[in-house]
């Protein structure tokens, strides 16, 4: 067994050795030049039934990248949400969503370290507005897989050949004190800010591409109990699993995703949080989300600009399975039917419009209509 001090020496020596080795070819190769700047923005107008319409500069994102050499690259993404950030008031958010270094060792095996995106599902890693239909991200990618999900981490990625690629990272776990009945694990993300790393998590994705088809399987598994250290319960373990596929040929685009979240010891977690706040959070032991979407370019081939019509059906049940003694809240067992249009005057500019009818299993709580319009662009 190596002691902690010896472990640090061991890691430090090997890291230094690796960096020296990487630096040698780096010095032999020309620099690519100045850092690059890119980004995306999206502006939304949302109308939810029985509520006033709301206009929002939802996201303003700048990305800066730099190649130190052909083998060492940096990428970052800084986001301002909702246009305005004010002290001590509910408002917007400034967040670093990505900031990592890639060490490109070999096609099959490369190293990534820094603030990374959790590689689960479709949207979390591919969230530029022109890459998806609908003004807002899907409900599944909001309350089941909480995009944008990121954290400090280190791991590997590579292309295994025959269209197969993978990513695998170690990151800090979740904070179960932030879990809710309505949005599942979303509030438990540590987002790389003084993250407690005592309960690490493993996350990974394997993807296969052939022709216009991309299929992926991804997961996240880790602890979430450090926020409960003073409460006498077994730390909950969280598992997230997701399967997804995208297909594109000529005018047709299809995509679908199935995602599930399991939370162990959810009953103990509910009791502990209720003892602290006095309110039963009714956190489920299993959440389930799935959607299927079909889109068709309806504009003539002669047009360089494009008009695409799409339809989507989603299930997003954050109360799928409850721990013993807890009853699911029927209004959180939801589904939604979405129809809309996306107009691309340029492939990087998307004007969007959609209508959403939500449903739930409650006979008391009404599921609203939503009408959304927006524009998003990438540069």
């Amino acid at each position, binding site marked *: 067994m190596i002691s902690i001090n010896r472990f640090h020496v061991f890691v430090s020596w*090997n890291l230094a050795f690796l960096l020296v080795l990487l630096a040698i070819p780096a010095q032999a190769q020309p620099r690519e030049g100045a850092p690059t700047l890119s980004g995306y923005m999206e502006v939304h107008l949302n109308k939810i039934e029985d509520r006033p319409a709301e206009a929002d500069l939802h996201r303003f994102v700048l990305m800066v990248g730099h190649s130190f050499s052909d083998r060492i690259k940096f990428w970052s993404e800084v986001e301002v949400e909702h246009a305005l950030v004010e002290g001590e008031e509910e408002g917007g958010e400034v967040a670093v969503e990505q900031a990592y270094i890639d060490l490109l060792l070999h096609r099959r*095996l490369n190293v990534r370290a820094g603030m990374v995106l959790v590689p689960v599902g479709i949207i979390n890693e591919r969230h530029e507005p022109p890459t998806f239909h609908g003004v807002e991200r899907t409900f599944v990618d909001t309350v089941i897989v909480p995009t944008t999900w990121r954290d400090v981490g280190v791991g590997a990625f590579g292309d295994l050949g025959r269209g197969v690629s993978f990513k695998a990272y170690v990151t800090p776990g979740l904070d179960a004190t932030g879990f809710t009945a309505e949005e599942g694990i979303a509030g438990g993300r540590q987002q790389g800010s003084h993250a407690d790393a005592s309960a690490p998590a493993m996350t990974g994705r394997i993807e296969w591409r052939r022709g216009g088809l991309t299929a992926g399987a991804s997961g996240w598994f880790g602890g979430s109990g450090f926020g409960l250290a003073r409460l006498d319960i077994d730390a909950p373990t969280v598992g997230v699993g997701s399967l997804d596929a995208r297909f594109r040929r000529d005018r047709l685009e299809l995509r679908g995703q199935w995602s599930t979240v399991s939370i162990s010891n959810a009953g103990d977690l509910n009791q502990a949080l209720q003892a602290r706040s006095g309110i039963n959070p009714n956190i489920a032991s299993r959440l389930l989300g799935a959607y299927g979407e079909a889109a068709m370019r309806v504009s003539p081939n002669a047009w360089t600009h494009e008009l695409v019509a799409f339809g989507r059906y989603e299930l997003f049940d954050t109360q799928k399975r409850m721990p013993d003694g807890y009853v699911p809240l029927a209004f959180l067992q939801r589904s939604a039917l979405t129809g809309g249009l996306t107009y691309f005057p340029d492939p990087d500019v998307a004007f969007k419009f959609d209508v959403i009818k939500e449903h739930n299993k409650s006979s008391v709580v009404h599921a609203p209509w939503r009408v959304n319009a927006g524009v998003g662009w990438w540069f």
Partner: protein
Amino acid sequence: MVVLIMLTNFLIVLALGIAGPQDLRTSGPQDSKSPGPRVVRITAERFAYTPSEIVVEKGTVIEFHLTSDDTDHGFRIVGTTVNAEIPKRRRGETVVTYTADIEGEFVIECSRPCGAGHTAMRARLVVK
């Protein structure tokens, strides 16, 4: 401890050795006696090229036909002078002719920022 560090250093060297140095040589002039160009169609999409591996015999003249399914991407064969821009979806194609006259493995990378996975958007050209 020292032995353990040396052993790990050896494994790192081994890993990099398997990876091999990137070939920095550039392509030579096209051989007029070689057969017609081999057409290779590559589609770029955030954040991958399809196909992601191209294997050719040494001396092959490759005619890359490059299109995108989304934004504009770059097509840079590392260690050569090839660095082309792939136009956006339905904006046509870029044709790049390259003579594979040097054996080795060449990394192809996206040289235009295209989003969250840009740095990992790579393919491989193998010249046997």
